[in-house]
């Protein structure tokens, strides 16, 4: 196929057009990103990041981490967990707390239960209260483990 000077000029224009379009689309996403970052900065005092681990080791050997999960400041553990997983739970009025029945469709079964831990002083501590009662702190690390309960720790 032979290209005349006219064709080459027009194809050059088309090439420039594609460059401009790519630049505009890249700029669009850059602006979107900047807007989102600005929004995050704006809400910096109202949000915090936490690390959530869901440990299915005793079920199938899997451990899944959700690091830097953004939650509202003052968020409880149950709400934070609901952000990263499907959680079924029951509220027990006598305990004034909720009991987690299943995470991601892995249900308590009489021998194994979902227990939660917090990472303090370089070791895992059993969660002292129900997940909906425990208020998270910024950058806190929490683990849900499907296990045969071994408390007291």
């Amino acid at each position, binding site marked *: *196929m032979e*290209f005349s000077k*006219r*064709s080459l000029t*027009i*194809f050059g*224009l*088309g090439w*420039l*057009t*594609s460059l*401009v*379009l790519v630049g*505009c*689309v890249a*700029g*669009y996403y850059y*602006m979107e990103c900047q807007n989102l970052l600005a929004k995050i900065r704006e809400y910096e005092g109202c949000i915090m990041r936490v690390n959530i681990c869901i440990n299915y080791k005793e079920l199938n050997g899997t451990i899944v981490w959700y690091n830097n999960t953004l939650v509202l400041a003052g968020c409880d553990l149950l709400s934070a967990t609901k952000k990263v997983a499907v959680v079924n739970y029951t509220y027990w009025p006598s305990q004034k707390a909720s009991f987690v029945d299943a995470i991601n469709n892995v249900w308590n079964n009489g021998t194994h239960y979902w227990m939660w831990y917090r990472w303090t002083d370089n070791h895992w501590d059993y969660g002292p209260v129900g997940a909906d009662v425990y208020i998270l702190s910024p950058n806190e690390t929490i683990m849900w483990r499907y296990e045969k309960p071994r408390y007291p720790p």
Partner: protein
Amino acid sequence: MFGAAFGVALGALTMFINGFLSPWGVAGVVMPYQMAGMALIGFMGGVYRRVLGKNPVEITDPPRILNLEVSFLAASLTLAYDVITNIGWALPYGVPIIVALIQGAWFTVVHVASNIVFFGSAFFILVRVISNLIGENPWSFRKEV
């Protein structure tokens, strides 16, 4: 087909009418820019027609390269049109032009892509239809430029 001057007049008139009857509503302050953009496209159509020269074979059986040329030209002119109309929107509202261009990026992409497809596939068919309607070979139609 009818020369650059006719193209300019037709383009401007089309957008003038479109400014009142568009389903998007009355164009308002953007209308002069739309008219200028479409006039530019009409002008470039006339220039392209002139550059192509007198070659009736190409219109009845256009080679693939000509279809490609028309597509690429349509892409560039669509971009030029969108830049002009974005400027027309940005200036009265005090929005930086680059921001206006970036905000309309995806619209421009769709606009350019649809015109590439449309011009690449239907341009010469339309030219033949219009030629038949007016009963003249557009390649031998009197040029104004």
